[in-house]
């Protein structure tokens, strides 16, 4: 049903060699410009539907500054164009931020991880097929959500955070960076602004056409992981229909600081159940001062699903989410 183009409509392609040049191009062309990272999400949009096509594409592939993993005074900084394979295999990340390495390693397929970037995976658009299929829904600039009706195919859609639109954030790395309390470095014009990962992802209530705080002209340049959570106890699990290659039905990322068997601090983030990676603060609060066992996990899981509003076909996500939280707290898969 989507309006498929045999050929990608034409656009002007720019291949800057520096961040400043890229930001200058993005700023000059504003909403007409498209920042191209790995290109895996972008190519869909260029070809498969009637979303306004970019007049200008800024290919970030030639900007060396955007690649690589660097140690900083307070943790590490990952360039936004670093591939998911590099993130998954990097020794420092594996040693101290294994949560992100695990999340990156579960994205799609090895080929896609070789091409896909951390920044692109974090900033990818939702997979709602009504939206992607060319339906003029709220997110596409219309005024109807076709996914939220009694007869809609909404098995993959949200149980939290709906506001007119019920699409979910499909990223695997997004909940990991929120759990690790990462900071997103965004360049606009000549200056950087640093946004907490938790605030970087936005829901439809705030802006129904975007999934992140990035506005036209902005460029995500790096992701900073503070040392606060380095080497703590992590848990990541992704549930999907096809184990070989699929987007998540739900995924969970947790980071816990445990001393003498007692949880001192915790961050639990679940994705693909809401339009943004959702931090489970009430569940986190229940963990502090207790031993992370089966019983505590069950309690935290029950708290996590409080207020869930399943759609016609995704009631299973409530029990899925409850169990993922329990498993994250318990720390092992049964």
């Amino acid at each position, binding site marked *: 049903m989507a309006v498929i183009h045999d050929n990608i409509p034409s656009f002007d392609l720019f291949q800057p060699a520096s961040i400043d040049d890229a930001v200058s191009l993005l700023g000059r062309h504003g909403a007409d410009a498209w920042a191209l990272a790995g290109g895996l999400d972008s190519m869909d949009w260029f070809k498969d539907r009637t979303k306004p096509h970019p007049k200008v594409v800024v290919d970030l592939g030639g900007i060396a500054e955007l690649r690589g993993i660097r140690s900083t005074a307070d943790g590490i900084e990952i360039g936004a164009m670093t591939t998911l394979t590099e993130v998954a295999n990097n020794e420092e990340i594996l040693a101290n931020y294994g949560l992100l390495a695990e999340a990156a390693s579960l994205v799609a397929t090895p080929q896609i991880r070789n091409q896909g970037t951390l920044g692109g995976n974090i900033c990818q658009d939702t997979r709602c097929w009504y939206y992607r299929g060319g339906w*003029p829904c709220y997110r596409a600039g219309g005024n109807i959500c*076709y996914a939220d009706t009694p007869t809609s195919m909404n098995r993959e859609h949200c149980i939290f955070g709906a506001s*007119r639109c019920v699409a979910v954030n499909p990223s695997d790395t997004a909940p990991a960076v929120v759990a690790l309390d990462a900071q997103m470095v965004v360049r606009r014009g000549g200056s950087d602004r640093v946004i907490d990962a938790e605030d970087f992802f936005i829901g439809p209530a*705030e802006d129904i056409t975007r999934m992140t705080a990035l506005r036209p002209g902005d460029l995500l340049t790096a992701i900073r992981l503070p040392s606060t959570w380095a080497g703590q106890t992590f848990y990541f699990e992704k549930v999907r229909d096809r184990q070989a290659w699929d987007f998540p039905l739900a995924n969970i990322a947790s980071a816990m600081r445990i001393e003498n068997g007692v949880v001192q601090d915790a961050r639990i983030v679940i994705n693909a159940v809401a339009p943004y990676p959702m931090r489970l603060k009430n569940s986190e609060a229940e963990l502090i001062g207790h031993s992370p066992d089966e019983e505590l996990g069950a309690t935290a899981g029950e708290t996590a699903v409080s207020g869930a509003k399943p759609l016609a076909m995704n009631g299973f996500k409530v029990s899925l989410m409850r169990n993922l939280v329990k498993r994250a707290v318990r720390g092992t898969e049964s």
Partner: protein
Amino acid sequence: MEFLQKATSPWGQEILVRVSWDLFWAVLIGSVVFLLVHQVLRRRWIGKEAEVVEGPGGAEKVTRHSLASRMFHWVMAASMLVLLFTGFLPIVGIKFSWVVIHWWAGLALIASIVFHIIHATVRWTFKEVWVSLRDVKDWWRGMMEALGSSGEKARKPGKYPVDNKLYHYAIIVTSLGVAVTGVLMMMAIDTPFFARDPYFLSEGTWGLVFVIHGLAAIGLVGLVIAHIYFAILPEKLWMTKAMIFGWITRKNYTYYDSERWSVEDSGESPGEAPVDAPVSETS
């Protein structure tokens, strides 16, 4: 500038989506231009209107608005401002979580409208805002006078001058426009009041609902800007104060035709006013 936004369905059909927000900018700019032009012309009119009313009774109170009327006005004003800000700030680029605030404010507006209709029906005050042939003639004379004609002068108005009455009609049309379409739109989102059903209307009808809602809301932007502007003009403040405190002075009252608005007949009793107030009416 386009007036309507349209989209294409997966079947290639053109669907009406909403009014173009270019119109919002046009109304906003037009309103500002109107205010600037009025500011320039106003200085000519004030001198003439200063001689309109001269009379005794500067310290005597005349009740103009009942407590119920004032409460309605301010609830409606507050809800209208919240609706306009939550509706248009995201469009101008200030993004925040606005939807829930918007429809709660909409419910407050609807409640105030229902109250106003019941109140006006019980007190049977419709004739106060009814535009008569005399009002039309006086409006025309007033316009000619404002433009410098030396013909017949407009006569004193009843409780509400004709421009107030016309403004009231414009508010009726636009408020009912946003209220009725707003309730329909609540059926397409998640609220505690309706089971969400976007197929309650066809796509084309939804588009029409959004267009009416948008047009009425954009109209309200201009109307509210004009209303606030006139309310804070120094020569109008006595009217604005009346909407806060409920009364005007006997001297202010002489601006009106006592036969068309008889406070004695309405049983309202005069009292002592703490301050004297200036008198003039310009629009």
